[in-house]
């Protein structure tokens, strides 16, 4: 995305996801349910106490778009760009939005295996680490 672009506003619920450099999801401390995006209460048991569940950053492209129209003047130099929706291998019901780095938008396909990489952004004394994605190479498969 452009240099001056929208960043996540950090709060108690999303801070780990956007700063830890690890793929961590919100997990209910009471019943263990994982929910994404993080919420103010566990939808299963209504507990308001949370811990995190770390995931291995592997998934597949579940859906994607290729944006051609710059919806904002700041995006003019960036289009066309792809946004992907990744289904995690460990928990396929969890879907995470991101960008696919180093792949031309016309080479993205549903089912494409991907792995997490981290985009470091220093902003107002904070270090954000946004989860992003790269195509999983053949020799990375296990």
């Amino acid at each position, binding site marked *: *995305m452009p240099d*001056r*672009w*929208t*960043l*996540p*506003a950090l*709060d108690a619920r*999303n801070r780990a996801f*956007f700063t830890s450099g690890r793929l961590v999801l919100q997990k209910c401390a009471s019943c263990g349910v994982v*929910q*994404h*995006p993080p919420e103010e209460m566990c*939808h299963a048991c209504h507990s308001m106490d949370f811990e995190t569940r770390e995931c291995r950053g592997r998934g597949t492209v*579940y*859906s*994607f*778009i*290729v*944006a*051609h*129209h710059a*919806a*904002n*003047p*700041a*995006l003019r130099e*960036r289009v*066309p*760009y792809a*946004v992907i*929706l990744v289904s995690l291998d460990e928990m396929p*019901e*969890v*879907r*995470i*939005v*991101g*960008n696919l780095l180093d792949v031309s938008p016309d080479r993205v396909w*549903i089912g494409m295996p991907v792995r997490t990489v981290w985009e470091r952004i220093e902003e107002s004394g904070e270090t954000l680490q*946004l989860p992003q994605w790269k195509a999983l190479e053949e020799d990375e498969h296990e």
Partner: protein
Amino acid sequence: MFRRAAVAGVGESDYYARGTSPYSATQLAAIAIRRAVEDAGLELRQIDGLVSYLEPLVVPPKLAALLGLDHLDFSAQTWGWGGNGVASAVAIGDAAVTASYAKHIVVYRALRQAEKERFGRSDLVPRAHGDYAFTAPYGMVTAAHVGAMQTRRFMHEHGVSQEALAEIALASYAHAQHNPRALKRGHPLTRRMYHESRWIAEPFHVYDCCQESDGAAAIVVTTLERARDLRKPPVPILAASQGLGYRDGVGAFNERHFPTAHYRRVGELLWQRAGAKPGDVDVAQFYENFTGCVLMAITELGFCAPDELERFVSEGNLQWPNGDLPLNTSGGNLAEAYIHGFENVNEAVRQVRGESTCQVDQVELSLSVSAPGYAPGSAVLFCRG
């Protein structure tokens, strides 16, 4: 509810391309309301209720003062992101007159999209909050992006081609050519133009996306009994529904049944309340934010199975006068005007009255469906009086 309330009047302002209206949103609303009230054969001062959806500017206390209403006994608007509340607002009007909270309710929507307030663009915000924090930083910032993400997966799962999306746009544009109100009258669309047009966000071409327009539309809702004494034949509200499935309000594409247009529950309630089935519908107006989302709503409401969709929408089946399900017979959001979908309610009523410019023969059931892709969805079914 259930055939005890009726639409007694419909009206709209002239429609304009975005940013070209000489009138403010309030002035446009007043014009549409005066015309709807006149159409019903009522006096403006007899209006005692005002209902809308996502209406940030034209608020009932001010509007009632400007219109000179004797008294305002009921005002409300529905929850939701916007266009998904069109039919829900009509349902509120229905419920309120049926329960005698007011006698003559105007349901309305007015839009004047200044540069800063356009739906089709996104202002640069330094920080994104809540669910938006999980999408905006990645360049996912407009409704078109959301609809495209849903549609791409839907096409993948059900073997739906770009041609199916084109059919929605082709139907709306074909119908608009007969409608003097339509902003795209005189601008017919061919299949070749569709495919050669620029991409907004794949899989959406520019013709898959609604216009941006200025204008207002309004209806008068009253009891069926009162409506029978008014100037025009009443158009009963047979049934309406608003619906949201389990955890459908979850953000960033994590609904359990992604992709969904959020119309499964709406359909279950609607057909049960109406005692009808999709095949009974004579003509349908579907809010086209984006063509792909309309396709999803068509299947979720039960008009066909997803795997049959490609065939269902092809070979002119959605086009007046020969198609089995003429769709968006005024031109809809794509080709009449984008009045946040309320122009589709007026058209659904006109089809029952026999006043459409693409009039379907012998309309018994006329459906208007609100925006797909946002939860909760809503729909309203009008019937012959």
